[in-house]
């Protein structure tokens, strides 16, 4: 993927660049909103990572501008621990996701990759397929190797999210945000327990486990 990093903290941008490049992405960096705007106009990107607070032009203004110009590139806002309703404001301004600094790098990569995937699956799907796993979104049914798997509604949503992001790491925070739609930070392993229940339903009795635990990041559904 081509990723535009708009960040005035040059060291942080450097670290991001390195990590994303190692993960196989191509990065372009801009040190403030105006340069970011120019770079976004000049090139095509799959995802933009934009810091909110920057000199010359802040991230919100930059994104509002590119959205007005019709650029729909997915945007991940980065923000220092700031005001309570930063997230809402950022999303209102045209951001697609929001990450508060300091963050774990695994979280950043997972969210960036989830954003790029989001754009690819633009058309309405009625059927999801990942390896042996089939999900019928209309009939609300899941099969593996043709064998029906009985899921609770929340487990179904959880699996749907994992299948839509198959092959990518998804973090616990992302799952809580996207599946349960809450933005808080549980101290107990509530998400892990839900995943392990789901895992026991889709992997138990099959020779190859599909739902993987990614150390330091979260989970990944492999085909």
């Amino acid at each position, binding site marked *: 993927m081509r990723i535009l990093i708009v960040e005035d903290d040059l060291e942080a941008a450097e670290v991001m660049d390195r990590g994303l490049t190692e993960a196989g992405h191509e990065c372009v960096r801009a040190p403030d909103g105006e340069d970011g705007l120019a770079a976004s106009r000049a090139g095509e990107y799959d995802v933009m990572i934009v810091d909110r607070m920057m000199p010359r032009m802040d991230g919100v203004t930059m994104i509002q501008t590119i959205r007005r110009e019709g650029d729909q590139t997915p945007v991940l806002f980065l923000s220092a*621990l700031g*005001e*309570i*309703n930063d997230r*809402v404001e950022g999303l209102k301004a045209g951001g697609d996701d929001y990450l508060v600094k*300091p963050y*774990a790098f695994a979280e950043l990569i997972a969210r960036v990759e989830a954003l790029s995937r989001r754009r690819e699956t633009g058309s309405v799907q009625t059927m999801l397929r990942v390896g042996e796993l089939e999900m019928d979104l209309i009939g609300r049914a899941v099969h593996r190797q043709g064998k029906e798997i009985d899921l609770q509604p*929340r487990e179904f949503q959880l699996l749907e999210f994992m299948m839509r992001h198959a092959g990518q790491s998804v973090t616990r925070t992302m799952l809580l945000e996207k599946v*349960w739609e*809450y*933005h*808080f*930070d*549980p*101290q*107990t*392993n*509530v998400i892990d*327990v*839900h995943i392990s*229940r789901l895992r026991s339903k889709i992997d138990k009795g099959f020779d190859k486990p599909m739902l993987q635990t990614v*150390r*330091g990041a979260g989970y990944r559904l492999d085909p």
Partner: protein
Amino acid sequence: MRLPRLFRTTPFRLTLLFLALFAAAASAFLAYIYLATAGEATRRTDQNITREMRSLVAAYDRAGVDAVNQSLIERAASERPFLYLLMKPDGTRISGSIAESPLEDVRGAPSRASFSVTDYDAQGRLVKHPARGFQERLSGGEILFVGADVSEDQAYVVKIVRALWGAGALVIVLGLAGGLLVSRNVSRSMGALNDVVAAVRNGDFGARATVRGTRDEFDELSEGVNEMLDRLERSMAGHRHAGDAIAHDLRSPLTRLRARLETAYLDVEAGKGNAEEALGQALDDTDGVLKTFGAVLSIARLQAAGQAPDQVLFDPADLAADLAELYEPTCEDKGLEFDAELTRDLQVRGNREFLAQALANLLDNAVKYTPAGGAIMLRVRRRSSGEVEYSITDTGPGVPDEDRARVVERFVRLENSRSEPGSGLGLSLVAAVAEAHGGRLELSEGPGKVGEMGPGLRVALILPRPA
């Protein structure tokens, strides 16, 4: 020259202003009384004189000048309070009780006037009496004068005027005295409050205003100031404590982190392969530090905002059901019985994210501290007061009575819970969330001791009835 302090106070200035207004009103009132009484006396005298004149003129018309003369002589001899004078057309006296007409133009009758007559008092001194009189030319050309001594009426009016002056002076003196008294009282109360403000400004946060128990606005102001200072003091103590506690709580993980990194560095230098594990641990430690930091910041922001942002009306049971669904598998995994009792169709106003975080913290605690085989109950109900209560009851070891107020404070962790992971900020954040919704947090004993279990803890997050 600087005026004494009392004369510079607002109440005293107000007193002067009101006194001036009052004096003006009183003057107008007194003037009216004077006109009404003095005018009335003059009119009554004139009426009496006119009546006397009519009767004499009637006698003249009936029986001629001799009859009037006769009548005058009789009347002058009687005790009637009138003065009479009958004159020839040229103004020379025929008869009467006075020597000559006091009116200047004798022939210009009819006319009336005020004048004075001289007399001798009981001690033989010459005195002047005020009088009023008319004269009329009779049909035969003679002139008749009738007057009356008004000294008594005049004396009455003078008395009234004197009384009015006295009353005016009394009003001013009493008003001034009352004003001074009130201003002194008010400025003393204000002075006391000013002293408190000055003391606080100089850094004495323990200074408090005296509440006299009179339930007046000064008491209200004093109570308000005291309450404000209480909150300020608590919040400052909280900040100071939080500062110390952050330093304390962050120091150990940061020290550990540094040691791990140093070990890893040395290991790598020595060509040993333990670096990966040390770095993984270092990352975990960093995450712990950041979590603590995040919680401290959330609390500080909520407290600074005073009011949780983005509040919406919603059914409290929906939120509780979401959290029940989220936590139920965790409870089951730990061998805890989990039950939710949710009253539907209530309404509450709040920020869903913060309330979710608060309930999650309470459920986290319950899961953490309740041993396997125990039970956790999540409940939503309406109190009889109309408030909405979320409560979480567990059968864990509970919190002793004397520690319940303390565990809500930042970073307070009871001795036997230090081994558990956590920042010690969970309940403080819940309390901050409750406060930012105008609600409160209540801790009480759970279901009591049953065998190895209990006595348990019941934590209630109480939110006000939506307006």
